[in-house]
C-alpha cells in the first residue's frame, strides 16, 4: 500500500466529501452577528429539559439528527460515528450515541475534538473502513462553567481576556457523494505546553499549538499562506489570535487577514464576552454553517481548518499545573467542478 503520510499530514487519495452539516446554537450565540447562519436556535439553555446536561445532550442529538436528515441518510446507514464534548467521560456524546443504532467512538481533544473527528473519519474512509461517517461535537456554557470553574451566580471578577464557552453543537456527515467540499488532508498535532497557568487565558495557552500545527502543515505540504484562502482557527479568541499572529510572524509567516477565529467571531467581538467564545461548539457550528456556505459560494476555495484544544481539568488547575494544548488541522477544499 502506498504511503499516504507526509510528516504529520495524511494525504487522502480519495478525499471524503462533507455531505451535510447541521448546527444548533444557544441563546447568547443567537444574539451574535452570525445567528442567521445556524440551523436552530435555543432560547432556553436547558432546551426544555430539567438539567443543563440533558439540555446539551438534546442539543447535540438534534444536531446529529438534523445533519442525517440533510444528508438523506438514517442512523443505520452510518458506518461509524465519532463524537465528543467537553464534559467528564464524554457524557454528552455517549448519551447521544445511546439513542442511535450506530457504532460509536468517543473522542477527546478538548476544543479540537471536532477537527479530530473529521480527520479520523476521513482517514477511516480513505482507508476503506467506512463509507459514511458522522463527526459531531458540542459544548455548553452552563455545563462547562460548573465543571471547570465556579457556580454561575458566584460573583467572581473575570479579566478582560476571559473567553466564554459557546453553547453550540455541530454535526458533519462524511460520504462519497454530494456536498460541495471535501477533506483532502489532515495534520495531526502534538501536545504543546509553554507554561500558561491562567485558566482564564486559554487562548494564549492554545496559540502555540495552533502555530505549531499550521507550520507543520506548511512544511509537510510545502505550502504557505498563499496556498490557502482562509486559515480558520477554532477558539483562540481575540487575545489568542494576536498571540498566534505574533508567533507566526516570528517565523516569517505573514498570514495577515487570512486568519480567522471561530470563537473570536461568534459573539461579534463585544466587550461583555471578553476575548470571545471558546468551546468545541464554536468551531463545530461555525465552520459548517458559516464557512462551508461561503466556500460553496466560491469565496474560499481552500481552507485550513485548525481545531485548538486546551487540555486542562478543574483539578489540574488547582494543582497549579500549566495548561497543555493540542491542535489538529484539516484541509477542506471546494470540489473541482462541484
Amino acid at each position, binding site marked *: 500500500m502506498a504511503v499516504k503520510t507526509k510528516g504529520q499530514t495524511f494525504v487522502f487519495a480519495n478525499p471524503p466529501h462533507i455531505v451535510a452539516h447541521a448546527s444548533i446554537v444557544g441563546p447568547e450565540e443567537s444574539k451574535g452577528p452570525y445567528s442567521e447562519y445556524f440551523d436552530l436556535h435555543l432560547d432556553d439553555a436547558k432546551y426544555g429539559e430539567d438539567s443543563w446536561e440533558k439540555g446539551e445532550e438534546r442539543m447535540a442529538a438534534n444536531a446529529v439528527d438534523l445533519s442525517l436528515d440533510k444528508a438523506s441518510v438514517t442512523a443505520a446507514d452510518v458506518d461509524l460515528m465519532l463524537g465528543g464534548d467537553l464534559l467528564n467521560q464524554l457524557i454528552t456524546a455517549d448519551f447521544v450515541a445511546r439513542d442511535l443504532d450506530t457504532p460509536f467512538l468517543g473522542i477527546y481533544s478538548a476544543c479540537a475534538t471536532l477537527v479530530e473527528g473529521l480527520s479520523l473519519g476521513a482517514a477511516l474512509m480513505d482507508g476503506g473502513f467506512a463509507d459514511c461517517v458522522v463527526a459531531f461535537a458540542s459544548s455548553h456554557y452552563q455545563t462547562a462553567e*460548573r465543571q471547570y470553574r465556579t457556580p454561575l451566580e458566584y460573583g*467572581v*471578577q473575570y479579566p478582560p481576556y476571559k473567553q466564554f464557552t459557546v453553547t453550540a453543537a455541530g454535526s458533519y456527515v462524511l460520504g462519497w457523494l454530494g456536498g460541495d467540499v471535501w477533506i483532502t488532508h489532515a495534520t495531526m498535532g502534538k501536545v504543546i505546553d509553554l507554561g500558561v497557568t491562567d485558566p482564564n487565558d486559554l487562548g494564549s495557552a492554545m496559540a502555540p499549538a495552533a502555530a505549531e500545527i499550521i507550520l507543520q502543515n506548511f512544511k509537510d505540504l510545502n505550502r504557505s499562506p498563499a496556498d490557502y484562502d482562509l486559515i480558520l482557527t477554532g477558539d483562540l479568541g481575540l487575545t489568542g489570535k494576536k498571540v498566534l499572529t505574533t508567533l507566526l510572524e516570528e517565523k516569517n509567516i505573514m498570514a495577515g487577514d487570512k486568519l480567522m477565529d471561530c470563537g473570536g467571531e461568534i459573539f461579534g467581538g463585544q466587550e461583555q464576552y471578553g476575548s470571545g467564545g471558546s468551546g468545541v461548539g464554536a468551531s463545530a457550528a461555525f465552520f459548517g454553517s458559516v464557512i462551508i456556505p461561503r466556500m460553496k459560494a466560491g469565496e474560499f476555495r481552500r481552507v485550513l481548518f485548525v481545531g485548538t484544544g486546551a487540555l486542562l481539568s478543574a483539578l489540574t488547575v488547582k494543582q497549579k499545573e500549566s495548561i497543555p494544548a493540542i491542535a489538529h488541522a484539516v484541509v477542506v477544499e471546494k470540489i473541482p467542478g462541484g
Partner: protein
Amino acid sequence: MKNINKTTDEFKKIVQKEQPPVNKTANFFKAFLVGGTICLIGQVFQELYMAFFNYSQQDAGTMATITMIFLGGLLTGLDIYDEIGQFAGAGSLVPVTGFANAMVAPALEYKQEGFIIGIGANLFSIAGPVLAYGMVSAFIVGLLQTLFGG
C-alpha cells in the same frame, strides 16, 4: 523536533504584550466604592435597628449582618450579584453579602441534582474554607490566650 521552540519565559513576554491590560487602578476604586457602600448600608441598618427596635448595639449589628446576608442572597437569586461581582471584584466579594453569595450560588447551581445531594451537599462548597479556617484560628487564638493568659 517541534516547530515552536520557545522557553516559557519568552512566551510569557508575548502573552503579556498581547493580553488586554487589567486596569488595576480602576479596579481598586471600583472595589473601594462598592465595598464602602455595602458597609455604609450595613451601618444604616444597624442604626435603624437600634433606633426603631431598641436592639443593643451588638444585637443591632448582628441583625444588620443578617439583613445584609439576606440582601446578598436575594441579589444572587435575582441574577444580579454576579454582575456586581464582575464590576466590583473584591468590593462585593469581601463583605458578608459576598459570603451569602458564596452560599446561595452553589445552592442554586446544584438544585438540579436534588435537595439532599445537590443543594445540601454543596451549600458550603465555596464558603466552607472561610468557616473552617475561621473556627480553627479562633480555637488556636483562644488556646494561646488560655495557655499564656491573654
